[in-house]
Every structure is written in C-alpha cells, then in structure tokens.
C-alpha cells in the first residue's frame, strides 16, 4: 500500500549552473519537490527560468551540480553515462517542441528507433510500433517521411516514439510550442489520455497557460527557484 503513494520522482536540493568563460551562471538553486505516479505536471516560467534544464535533469540528459534526483527508486545522479543511457531508454519517453524526428526515416522507422536497442524480434517490434501508431491515430501514415506530415502529425509520431517502449515517465518540452491551436489541443488531449488510460506520468514544460490547464498540477520557476 505504501508503494502506491510513493513519488515516482523525488528531487532534493537540486542545483545546476553553467559556466561561460570565467562566469558561473546559476540556473537552478536548491530545488526540492516530488511527482506522484500518474501525475500530469506542467512546469511553467519565463524564458531562462531553468524549466527546460530541470526537465533535462529529471530525464537524465544533463548532469546537476548537487542534489538528488530519485526516479522510480533510482538516484540517477549516481549513474555513469552508459548506465544513464540505458536507464533513459527504458524509463523515459521524450517529446520535443520541434518533434526531433529523423528526416530520413519513415514514421514507422522513427517510432521503431527506441526498440532497436531492445532484444525484441522484428515481428515484435512491428507489433509494438503499429500499436503505438494506432494509439496516436497515424496507422495509415506509417510509411510517410516526416516531411510528408503536418506539424501535428509529426508530433503525434514523436509521441508514439515516446510511448513505444512503454516507459513510466514522459517528458515533454514545449510540445505544443510549434503547433496551431487545433493541433496543440489534439496533442494535449492525447497526452491526457496517456495519463488517464495508460497511467503514464507526464512532465511538461510549457509557456502556454492553455496547455498548462490540461495538467493536474503546475509548478512555477523563476530565476531557477521554485515559486509555486
């Protein structure tokens, strides 16, 4: 019973700074908070507030200066680069503002990417990919290249890629930032479905208050400090 209420992400005293020449620029200072499993969290704040850096740290694609980031019981700050890469592949799905699809790969092949690192057979990979593309409503577009898809469709492919390996956490960095209102709404609905129907935990960085309204909770950052 206790395990069910345990946070999926626990951040303690997290600090991060960047060095530009001689200058040290603090980006995050003493951040501590938790995220419950199945939560849809929006991280908001002005540009340069450190929200994307915080997202990158939680997702294990950047390193903090100090503090702890415990995800599903693993302190990822202690993992070596190779272990961290394996952990990412297993545990986190990524959704980017500009979709970050491989332009030379079809929708199917893009979604298949994370599965290339698994031991699944070709047939099993195909089943997973087709299921993921069906989930985002693009089963009929699997042979299309990104350039043949609209922005909203590309983002849906990116979401299919994020969920295909069935990670517990999805991190989304401005997922609607490059989309029109209708496409943005579709994407947010889809993410909401992933939370409700599949029990995913979604951490989303956004500038857009309308996007944040879809989230269960909102955290605000200002100059690297949590303000709410």
């Amino acid at each position, binding site marked *: 019973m206790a395990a069910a209420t345990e946070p999926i992400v626990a951040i303690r005293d997290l600090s991060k700074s*960047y060095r530009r020449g001689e200058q040290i620029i603090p*980006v995050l200072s003493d951040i501590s908070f938790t995220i419950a499993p199945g939560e849809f969290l929006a991280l908001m*704040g002005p*540009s*340069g*507030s*450190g*929200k*994307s*850096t*915080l*997202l*990158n740290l939680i*997702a294990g*694609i*950047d390193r903090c200066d100090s503090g702890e980031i415990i995800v599903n019981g693993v302190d990822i700050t202690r993992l070596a680069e*190779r272990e961290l*890469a*394996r952990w*990412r*592949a*297993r545990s986190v799905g*990524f959704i*980017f503002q500009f979709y*970050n699809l*491989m*332009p*030379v*790969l079809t929708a199917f*092949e893009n979604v298949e*990417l*994370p599965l*290339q*690192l698994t031991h699944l057979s070709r047939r099993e990979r195909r089943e997973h990919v087709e299921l993921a593309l069906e989930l985002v409503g693009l089963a009929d577009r699997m042979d299309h290249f990104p350039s043949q898809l609209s922005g909203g469709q590309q983002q849906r492919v990116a979401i299919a*890629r994020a969920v295909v390996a069935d990670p517990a956490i999805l991190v989304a*960095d401005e997922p609607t930032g490059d989309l029109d209102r209708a496409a943005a709404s579709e994407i947010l609905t889809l993410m909401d479905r992933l939370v409700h129907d599949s029990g995913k935990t979604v951490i989303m*960085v956004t500038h857009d208050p309308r996007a944040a309204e879809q989230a269960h909770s909102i955290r605000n950052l200002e100059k690297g400090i949590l303000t709410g």
Partner: protein
Amino acid sequence: MFMLKLILRNTFRHKLRTTLTVVGVAVAILAFGLLRTLVGLWYLGVDSSSATRLVSRNAISLIFPLPISYAERIRQVPGVSEVAWGNWFGGIYIDEKNFFANFAVSPDSYLRLYPEFVLAPEEKNDFLRDRKGAVVGRKLAAKYGWKVGDLVTLRGTIFPGQWEFAVRAIYRGAHKNVDETQFFFHWDYLNETMKKTVPRRADQIGFFMLGVSRPDIAPEVAANIDATFHNSLAETLTETEKAFQLGFVAMTEAIMIAIRLVSYVVIVIIMVVAANTMAMTARERTAEYATLKTLGFGPGHIAGIIFGESVAIALVGGILGVALTFPAAGWIETALGQFFPSFTIAPATIGYDLLAALSVGVVAAAIPTWRGATVRVAEGFRRIG
C-alpha cells in the same frame, strides 16, 4: 541492418553535396592513379630490362661514339654471347611533333637480343634482306597508318638528309610492357651513307648491346670489357641494361619525385575538402545525434553513423575514380602514345587508389566522429530553458 540503412539514407540526404564530394574524391583518385601510373611507367624500361643484357658506351658520355672495331674484341671477352650495336638516329617524320624513337641497329644480332619483339618470320627475313628496310612497332604503324611495303621518309637531325625506308616488318610485344612505338633500320644503311657524305663519322656506333650467357656473370663481364679498352682513346662504360636505364631515369628523378608529391598532395587536398563536408554535415545533425543519444543510443552508434557515411562517400568516389582511370588511361595511350606507349593501370595502383579513398573517408570522419560521439545531449539541443 538498421545502422546500415541510416548510414545509406544519410549519405544521399543532400544529393548535391554528396554528388559534389563523390565527384571530388573520384577526380582526386583518378589523378592519383594516373600520376602513380605515370611514375611507374617512367621505371618501365628499368623493370622490363633483361638481366642478361649489357650496354657498353663511351665512358665520357653517351653522345660520344665508339669505333665499330670494338665489336670483335668485345666478342672475345669470356661470357659474351651476342654483340649488337646501334645509333640513336633522331629522325623526324614530317613534323617535329611526330616524335618516336628511331635507331640504326645491327639487325640480326639486335633482334636476337630482343626476343620480346615478335615478328612474322617472312617479314623478318624481308627486313633482314633489305638494307633500306625498317621494322616498326605495331602501335607506331597503326598511328601513322603504315603497312608492310610502305615507304617512309625521315628527316635526319643528327645525321642530316632525307632518309627513305621501306617498312618490311611490324613487330608486336611479347608482353604488355614492350614498347611498340619504336622504329629500327639497318645500321649498315646509315654507315654506308656516312662513308659517302661525312666519312669521319663512319664506322662509329653509339652503343653496344651485349648478351651474356648468365645473369650472375654480368658484372664480371662488364668489368672485363671496360678493362679491355682501358687507356684507349675511347674508353667504355659497360653496365647492365637495368643500370643503363636507371641512368636515364636518374636524370629526371627530381621530376618524378615532384609528380609523386603532387599525387599525395591531391589526396591531402581532397581529405581536407571531405573533412570539411563531413564536419558541416555533422554540425547540422548535432540535434539528431543528441536525439539519438536521448533515446539511449551510445557514442559508438553515433560514431558509426558519421564514420560510415564518410567512408561510404569516399569509397563511392574511389570506385568511380578507379572506373574512370581505365578510359582515361586508354585515352592517354591513344592520344599521347609517343610519350606513353603502354599506359597500363597496374592492379597495385587500383589497390592504392582504394586505399587512398578509404584513407580520405577515415581521416575526413575523424574529427566529426569524435565531436558527434562526445557531444553531450543537452549541449546538442543547445537549449537552456
């Protein structure tokens, strides 16, 4: 399989850029191959020299003659199995641009010394019987449309006058490296004419070509011949045919070194160009590499993608360059036959071409691969939220 697919698709992603780079590599490999072949050809005379042939000439210089009377004394030197002689004639056919080697030789003995000049028996007999007869190489005859029986007039430069010859035989090489662009005629014809027109130049030859019974005695025979004429008015310098040819090559050694250097410089230049292309390509795709790393792909995967693309481009260029080398060599052999009678691409040259192309791919990929493999994900996205 997936990696290979990604590499191939990335390779042809920017068609114009890839095409230009491939063409650049191909041209460089073509130039490299042709220059290497040219250098090799320079040494062809040396390589195709016989170990049982000696050349004896005036010790002061090749331009000074030796008396024909030496022939009998040389024949007496133990180990000498054949004595032939000749003069560089230096005749011009119609125009100076029609250059080819032409020699006045002792016909019978000279042909015996050069079994690699293959003549039809009846043509050979006709040549030997006709004092004004000439034997010409197959390529030379083809170039000027000469047939057996045709009359050919050469304008003498070293031996002035209009010299008329009848083509009595056309020789072919016993193997590919034999020069088929030479012109030989009877030394007697030259000598008899000299006796009438410039008697002081009669009975003199430019070089003796000698056969020895065994290669291992060649140095000893050469020393004995030179000792025979020591302290005479015309001392001899006798050396193996190979050493004699090397003496010619040595005169142009600096040019050969320069050509060799140029061939390497061509490769270095294309390496720099290809490295720039790969650096540009890798820089443009940094976000993609970061995305792949985000998804769990390691530095080895990223390195493989960049490295594979660079090597693929270089090898495609290399293969194209090698393919172009053959028609280019054929054209050179046809159009510049008087300078390059047999412009043959050696298998080793093809090997060097492909090795050079591979080196271009490897070197061009080195820095972009290292950068791509070591880029940190967050840096790759270049975003600070």
